[in-house]
């Protein structure tokens, strides 16, 4: 089987491979600063123990799933209380519980979300208390 245009085909395949592996080779050797999250809010300053609903590692990986479970539990099943693994009970509210401590959305929530390119649409409805009380 003769292949005409072998040169053009090879060039095309090379460009394709370069583009498809872009995510793997771009950024090699560069250092990316992890976003610095600010816990500097009046509510957190008053806490005796710096612990969220669950511990930091858990929250970092699972806060989205936790919020969705809270959401469905509250709206569809009427469960408004969450018992954390250490036994503390929280109301399942984004604005009322989470944002009560983390009232600095732009220095906290937005920093990671902007870094990873996540655009949660929660805030098109759920109010950011700090911005309202201004």
């Amino acid at each position, binding site marked *: 089987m003769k292949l005409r245009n072998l040169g053009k085909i090879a060039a095309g395949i090379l460009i394709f491979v370069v583009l498809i592996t872009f995510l793997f080779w771009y950024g090699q050797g560069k250092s990316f600063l992890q976003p610095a999250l600010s816990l500097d809010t009046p509510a957190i300053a008053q806490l005796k123990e710096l612990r969220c609903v669950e511990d930091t590692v858990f929250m970092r990986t699972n806060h989205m799933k936790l919020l969705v479970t809270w959401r469905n539990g509250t709206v569809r099943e009427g*469960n408004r209380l969450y018992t954390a693994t250490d036994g503390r009970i929280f109301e399942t509210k984004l604005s009322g519980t989470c944002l009560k401590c983390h009232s600095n959305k732009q220095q906290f929530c937005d920093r990671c979300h902007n870094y990873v390119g996540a655009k949660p649409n929660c805030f098109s409805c759920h109010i950011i208390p700090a911005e*309202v009380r201004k």
Partner: protein
Amino acid sequence: MTPSRRDFLKIAGISTLSLVAPAILSPVWAKDKLTIPGGAPLTAKRWGMAIDASKCPVGCVDCITACHGEHNVPDIGNPKDEVKWIWQEKFSSVFPHESHTYLRESQAQLKLPVMCNQCANPPCVRVCPTQSTFQRQDGIVMMDYHRCIGCRLCMAACPYGARSMNYRNPQPFIAKTNPDFPTRTKGVVEKCNFCDERLVRGLKPACVAACTKNALVFGDMENPRSEIRLLIEKRFNLRRRASLGTQPQIYYIV
């Protein structure tokens, strides 16, 4: 043998699909659930409300102000896009079949508060294609604003015109935001929710609490000794469009 162009495209298509399929299918089937311990079950009652509009002072809108303020209901300012959970209509509009030309003018013009009737047999729940409006065990017809796709079939199904669509982003039109309750976003349908967020804290609905004349009575229809049951047994009352079989739970004392 060289494959035909058609066969080549078929193989390419199937290969691409097999690469892409797990990414599409797995979120549906590989949900890891977070288990939440605790959570109090709802008691099986049926919430209802009795309204005696003859007690309403002329021009009083306390119930409306309280509800709309508490729930961040926007004031869009034109009847086309307006959003309202509770409002007033005159008796001859609310009860057109129980009115006639010779009705006393003050009766025909009497302003009645109207809102979602929290029907026991709600047609809106029946027609919702995503079950984003659903009925709870305590009878409240709830809205899940996260799931609503804004198709407005519930608005067509509601015989009472109780539902409002957010035709625009409501947030700029909220005069004073209540930070303890979310707003809604454009593209979803909303309505009165019998203040379930207050009920769970042991508070009566905002309209009932705001009424200084005791014109709104709220309670459990299935408790024969509740204030509302005693009231509607004592005084004659009507429900809107009762012949449609929706079993509305707002009782108007006339």
